[in-house]
């Protein structure tokens, strides 16, 4: 025991150094977020919020709210209200206020998009196999016959008792708006829990609320429609609120005889909308972004652009084979690198 003091000193020094290093490592790796991912609506749903007391419970509640809504709006769920409307076609169905308003909203965008956005497209989706059956190209005759059972203008609304009558043979599919509507309910739940900085992503439909915990803007990329699913390097959205949705022919499709058939069917013709590859929409709420991305894709290059420029608070980016168009107000929220 020649230098016991020095040895103890050295050990203390190493222990303190290790402590400092581990502490600083935790500081560097410390995440500002609490996040959770679950699977429903046939996709993954991620909720990311500022890490603070109560964040975990708030995210769980929000997930639960979204799951409940996804069951209510799924036409293949025998307990859902949409299933009930479809199975009661020809009869009056009484609705709750929020479901009635949701169908009213679908009606509004049906008119605004000149019939391109139509939740009564279900029989056509089924015919093409985008429901539960096998995907295939139907005969022209079949398409023409099914088209007679499509058209939301035939849905009868009765505001007095908040009921609807769907004509016999018709059915509804909320695929073009449900995800957005459900994200909005999830965000509402988070805000009700006092969460001010939040992000919800359900299958590529994104809504953010407030800035990020470090006070910077949320950076949202957009997937390129072809190739290895890369992100547009020169088009990044920087958001402190609002929602982004993208519709592309690469999402759900099948290829027959070398031709791509996507799930984006024009309800007015019964065939795929083919003018565009992808459409990204920014709107204040997720349901608007969801509806409009589908609408613009189906409306096409010219009509789509005119609609966007006539709507306030809505911006869009559209891409077809050889060119890209960005609406006039997008420069305020998008970073063009």
């Amino acid at each position: 025991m020649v230098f016991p003091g020095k040895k103890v000193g050295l050990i203390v020094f190493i222990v303190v150094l290790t402590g400092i290093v581990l502490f600083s490592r935790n500081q560097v790796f410390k995440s500002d977020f609490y996040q959770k991912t679950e699977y429903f609506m046939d996709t993954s749903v991620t909720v990311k919020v500022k890490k603070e007391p109560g964040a975990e419970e708030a995210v769980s509640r929000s997930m639960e709210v979204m799951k409940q809504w996804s069951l209510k709006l799924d036409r293949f769920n025998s307990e859902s209200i949409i299933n009930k409307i479809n199975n009661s076609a020809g009869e009056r169905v009484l609705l709750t206020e929020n479901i009635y308003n949701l169908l009213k909203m679908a009606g509004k965008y049906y008119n605004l998009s000149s019939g391109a956005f139509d939740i009564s497209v279900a029989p056509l989706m089924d015919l093409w196999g985008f429901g539960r059956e096998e995907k295939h190209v139907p005969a022209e005759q079949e398409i023409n016959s099914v088209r007679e059972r499509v058209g939301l203008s035939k849905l009868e609304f009765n505001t007095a008792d908040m009921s609807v009558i769907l004509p016999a043979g018709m059915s509804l599919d909320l695929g073009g708006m449900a995800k957005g509507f459900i994200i909005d309910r999830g965000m509402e739940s988070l805000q009700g829990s006092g969460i001010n900085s939040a992000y919800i992503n359900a299958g590529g439909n994104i809504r953010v609320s407030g800035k990020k915990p470090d006070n910077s803007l949320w950076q949202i990329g957009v997937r390129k429609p072809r190739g290895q699913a890369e992100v547009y390097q020169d088009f990044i959205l920087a958001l402190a609120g609002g929602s982004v949705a993208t519709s592309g022919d690469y999402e759900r499709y099948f290829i027959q005889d070398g031709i791509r058939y996507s799930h984006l069917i024009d309800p007015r013709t019964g065939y795929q909308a083919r003018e565009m590859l992808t459409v990204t929409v920014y709107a204040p709420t997720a349901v608007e972004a969801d509806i409009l991305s589908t609408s613009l894709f189906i409306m096409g290059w010219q009509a789509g652009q005119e609609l966007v420029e006539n709507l306030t608070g809505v911006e869009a980016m559209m891409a077809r084979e050889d060119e890209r168009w960005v609406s006039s107000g997008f420069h305020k929220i998008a970073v063009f690198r």
Partner: protein
Amino acid sequence: MQRLLKYLTLYDKILIVSLIIVNVFFILFPLYHVYTGNQDEVGKGYIVIRNNGKVEKKIPVARTFREDPLLIEVEGRIGTSIIEAINGEVRLKEAPPEDPQKICEKTGWISRPGPSIICVPNQISITIEAGEDGLDGVSW
């Protein structure tokens, strides 16, 4: 100093050297990620799967933004591990039945450079290499 060195046993020296190596690693590792995280390489991150220390698969994070999860099977030392990647995140979904504790299944999802999933019995590791962390999300 000479007399101090003489006083330390071999194990003391091994301990000191290992602690220094660990410290240097933890100082440099975060700095490396702070540095690479600022690069303008949006959407270019990779999920790296190592089998017995060797890189077996390198998948662009951008490819995981899709409707259905990307499932990758890796044949390890004791059986097949199933790895699941979606929406910029990756996890070890199923460890082989031969793995008694399946600790790596319990690690859960990782979505950024830094943490890793390590399956000791099957000698498989999963990490995310920097690039993608400039973005908070991708719309598709």
